[in-house]
């Protein structure tokens, strides 16, 4: 796929938004503005960015607790996301979900699920609804490679394949599930091969290359929309930071982390954009400024946010009831 400059810049900008947004989150966490668990996507930005390009607003997204990036590039406002992290009622989940539970029904962003594997059955259900209602929509479901050991993953894969459901399974293989290396969690470490055992088209993708990700996602989504049934993509990527905020990282070497950083999705792509003349220092500076501006505004919005009234605590436990 030949990459035009404008689209290249767009992709780079989206990845940059994720990276800078999360870097700010780290500061805010240290400052105590963000609490609970905080799972960073830094290093994996190309995956969410590339896949979202292949989706239309009418499609659905199901993600995990490591979903800031997915929400951002899906179009959930940075303000609403940051306010959510701050636990403010202006947040995209009224401050009830926090980092792990970002929701936006209007953008068909179904969260934000913190039960590993728990989102997959929901995703195939969304796809089942589309299929039964003869809608040509796709549901993209993100999960880590660790989820592939969970029974719910297997039940969902089988149902999707059996019923020919329009689901794009996006496995973010960052090689570790917390401190557990892939080889200690799966007897078959070739995950695309594993997925293929469900009679489902599946292939591995360089998850550090946003163009490769977009290309693969577009191919898969086109096939799914055309009635080709579920597809599985294994995105080979890497998490630079701790699993969550506290993590001594006893399970991997600094050298390994550094190696992967040599293939950083932003740096590598920026270099490429410069070679094709799509990016230079001025443009880069301008991008950084715009992104910084967006994030500053988001932080200001979150800081100015309000606490949900305690009286609303029991509101929305059940639908259709007075608080």
């Amino acid at each position: 796929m030949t990459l035009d400059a404008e689209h290249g810049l767009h992709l780079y900008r989206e990845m940059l938004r994720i990276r800078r947004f999360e870097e700010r989150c780290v500061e805010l966490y240290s400052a105590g503005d963000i609490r609970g668990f905080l799972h960073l996507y830094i290093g994996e930005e190309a995956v969410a960015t590339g896949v979202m390009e292949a989706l239309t607003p009418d499609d659905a997204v199901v993600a995990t607790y490591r979903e800031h990036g997915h929400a951002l590039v899906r179009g959930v406002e940075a303000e609403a996301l940051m306010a959510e992290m701050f636990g403010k009622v202006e947040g995209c989940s009224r401050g009830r979900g926090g980092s792990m539970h970002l929701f936006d029904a209007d953008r068909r962003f179904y969260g934000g699920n913190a039960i590993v594997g728990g989102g997959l059955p929901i995703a195939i259900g969304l796809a089942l609804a589309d299929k039964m209602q003869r809608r040509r929509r796709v549901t993209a479901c993100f999960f880590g490679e660790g989820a592939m050991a969970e029974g719910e993953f297997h039940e969902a894969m089988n149902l999707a394949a059996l019923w020919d459901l329009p689901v794009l399974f996006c496995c973010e293989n960052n090689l570790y599930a917390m401190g557990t290396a892939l080889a200690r969690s799966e007897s078959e470490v070739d995950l695309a091969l594993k997925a293929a055992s469900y009679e489902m088209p599946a292939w591995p993708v360089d998850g550090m290359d946003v163009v490769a990700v977009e290309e693969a996602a577009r191919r898969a989504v086109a096939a799914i929309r055309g009635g080709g049934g579920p597809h599985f993509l294994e995105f080979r990527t890497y998490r630079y930071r701790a699993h969550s905020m506290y993590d001594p990282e006893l399970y991997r070497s600094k050298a390994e982390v550094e190696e992967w950083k040599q293939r950083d999705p932003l740096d590598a792509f920026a270099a490429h954009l410069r070679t094709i003349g799509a990016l230079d220092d001025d443009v880069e500076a301008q991008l950084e400024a715009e992104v910084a501006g967006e994030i500053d505004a988001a932080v200001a919005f979150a800081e100015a946010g309000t606490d949900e009234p305690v009286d609303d605590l029991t509101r929305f436990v059940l639908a259709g009831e007075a608080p």
Partner: protein
Amino acid sequence: MTATAASAATAGPAAAGTVRTTYRDAMRAALREALQRDERVFLMGEDVGRYGGCFAVSKGLLDEFGPERVRDTPLSEAGFVGAGIGAALGGMRPIVEIMTVNFSLLALDQILNNAATLLHMSGGQLNVPLVIRMTTGAGRQLAAQHSHSLEGMYAHIPGIKVVAPATLEDARGMLWTALEDPNPVLIFEHGGLYNMEGELAADAGPVDISRAVVRRPGERLTLVTYGGSLGKCIAAADELAREDISAEVVDLRVLRPLDTSAILASVARTHRAVVVDEGWRSGSLAAEVSARIMEGAFWDLDAPVGRVCAAEVPIPYARHLEEAAVPQVAGIVAAAREVVDAGG
């Protein structure tokens, strides 16, 4: 026979405009009506289609509505219950059938962590209009992995509603109301009731799923119960009546949220109560009812509230042990006498 006792208590004397039917057929009629009235409705579960339903409840529906809407699933409780949640989010109105409550534990993660939680956790954005039906209870010598009554565990979970049809009307009428409800609703069908026969109004239709109902008025004490134990309580009340002990029987119908005011209103009249529940005693729904009476009617009580629950054992196969393990009429009568004789 307790079954007819229960239905008699609800259907009243056979009259013109009633039809003779069974709990199973009433449930099937409700499923058929739902599938006819709303094309978003579909039934999904193990063997609901070609096999005809493991308890023959959905028999014939496949031919009428086809395999898309009467959908056989593989053995994947977590998978297809979760798929039901997703389908509900996607605009459908799924009815998911789990064969037996013991198996539903495989889907409890989906029910508690997702179905019951999504609306609140998303700040009110994502309600889950899902109905889950399952069989519960003992009495058919199916032993410890097919006979438990775990509905009390489900009644502990905020974000869902739990109902237990104990009569033909409720078997016929609760499903539609549950489907109209924007929340997840779990319907517990006691396996011992499917063959219950009685008269049902020919025009029987949807019923409320918010109130408890007095199935039999009385003065001396209140028997609070639900589901498979209703017939036993009616029979116990009949027996007590012969000893001039007039027992009121309250059918909870809805296990979550509990209709506390109906319970307290009855106890305010009778000043005595026994709660009858086929669940294990410790941590039972009966404990919650007792605690609410304690909190809401303590000063009305002339005696401590009693409980008749299942023995705290895995339900055994041998008939005599199974019978000894769950509430029976004699035990209910004895507990009622004790409460009536106690105190002032």
